[in-house]
């Protein structure tokens, strides 16, 4: 258990978040300078003038595709989203691009990821926005096209940064899911079950890498002590390949169990696995093995001096 706390805890605290974002480094790479911030500030009155119609056209496109239309169930919702979209567009020319801006953009990315808007629509939406904005910016700067061009490039830079943050958020959410699931697989794939008073069974399934072996050994030893079981059956029916490393892990686990004073029966040793182990030169002569779990259970009963006796049917007992 102790081995899992370090990296996992850190992971947990950043769940769904984009861990340390080098915001200044990102801006530097894109070439976003204070000049760009100033150009965007100058663009603000222009953006305020066109924001309303850009949003209307923007949603016309969204509503003309069934996949994106599905996100707007009713009129009220559409109007609410339109208002938020307008705020978002105006935010691009807000003029302050520090920590608060970054946090706001990451949150927007997370919201879109959560509602399940696929990147193709999300990224496509930015293209639609640029198409709608470009002629309007140029028109507004008709008297100074050179400045108009620089203003548009500034807008392109900040949008690129926004897009990149959105993608990063999506990837972080995906990685978070993968980490959680692989952790869950490790958890559920090494059960140790008490099948009789004094007998635990550990059915192993899949491949035994070093991390799983560690987990498995801890769990098995804990359960043996908890249930005060003198016999443990380790079943390898579900392990497709036993190579020397896996065998070494098994032997180590069995040795550890013996140190607790319990005995291990290795069950589910299939003919093909038995032959392979012989070829590999692995010595299991000191270990009690059986080809099936049922045979192993019989060995366990013998060790506990228990007998399974065929009795009369329960109804006939009295």
């Amino acid at each position, binding site marked *: 258990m102790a081995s899992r706390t370090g990296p996992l805890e850190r992971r947990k605290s950043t769940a769904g978040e984009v861990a340390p974002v080098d915001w200044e480094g990102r801006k530097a790479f894109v070439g976003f300078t204070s000049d760009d911030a100033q150009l965007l500030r100058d663009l603000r009155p222009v953006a305020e003038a066109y924001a309303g119609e850009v949003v209307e056209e923007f949603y016309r496109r969204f509503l003309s595709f069934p996949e994106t239309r599905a996100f707007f169930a009713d009129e009220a919702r559409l109007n609410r989203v339109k208002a938020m979209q307008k705020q978002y567009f105006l935010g691009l020319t807000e003029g302050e691009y520090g920590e608060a801006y970054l946090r706001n953009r990451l949150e927007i990315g997370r919201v879109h990821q959560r509602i399940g808007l696929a990147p193709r629509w999300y990224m496509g939406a930015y293209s639609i926005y640029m198409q709608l904005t470009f002629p309007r910016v140029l028109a507004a700067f008709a008297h100074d096209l050179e400045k108009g061009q620089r203003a548009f490039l500034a807008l392109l830079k900040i949008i690129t940064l926004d897009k990149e943050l959105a993608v990063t958020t999506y990837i972080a959410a995906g990685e978070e899911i993968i980490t959680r699931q692989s952790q869950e697989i490790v958890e559920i794939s090494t059960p140790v079950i008490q099948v009789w008073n004094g007998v635990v069974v550990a059915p192993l399934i899949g491949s035994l*890498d*070093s991390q799983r072996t560690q987990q498995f050994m801890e769990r098995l030893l804990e359960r043996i002590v908890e249930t005060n079981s003198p016999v443990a059956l380790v079943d390898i029916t579900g392990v497709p390949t036993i*190579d020397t*490393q896996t065998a070494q892990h098994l032997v180590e686990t069995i040795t550890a169990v013996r140190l607790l004073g319990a005995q291990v029966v290795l069950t589910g040793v299939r*003919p093909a696995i038995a032959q392979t182990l012989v070829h590999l030169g692995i010595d299991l002569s000191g270990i009690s093995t059986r080809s099936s779990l049922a045979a192993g259970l019989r060995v366990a009963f013998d060790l506990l001096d228990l007998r399974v006796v065929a009795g009369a049917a329960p109804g006939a007992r009295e």
Partner: protein
Amino acid sequence: MTDLLEGEIGIATESDLVVARKAVRGAADSLGFSVTDVTRIVTAASELTRNIFRYAGTGVMRWHRLERGGSLGLELTFADDGPGIGDIEQAMQAGFSSSGGLGLGLPGAKRLMDEMEIASEVGKGTTVTVRKWRRKA
């Protein structure tokens, strides 16, 4: 690029060993090897990919179908740019290990397969080639 009967898999993490075993199992199964032989081949592949992971860190496994005089076979090649093996004869002895393992991997893989060749140069890397032929039914 990777079809069932030939392909290539990069080895860099422990989970790549699982991918490699699965690929070899698929190839051996589709060539019609017996259950025991499939297990032998997959186990040998497991040993040899693990050696790459353990000693060289990264490397590659390639496999392809063989045909010679009417019999079918499978060839597996394991190549890395790792530290190389100083004394191949010693490495082939059961019980010798430079890493605290059981020292059974390399000689074991040889016994599990029909043919094995090792080419290794210290500081340059190692290439192990193994073959298994399908016994005629």
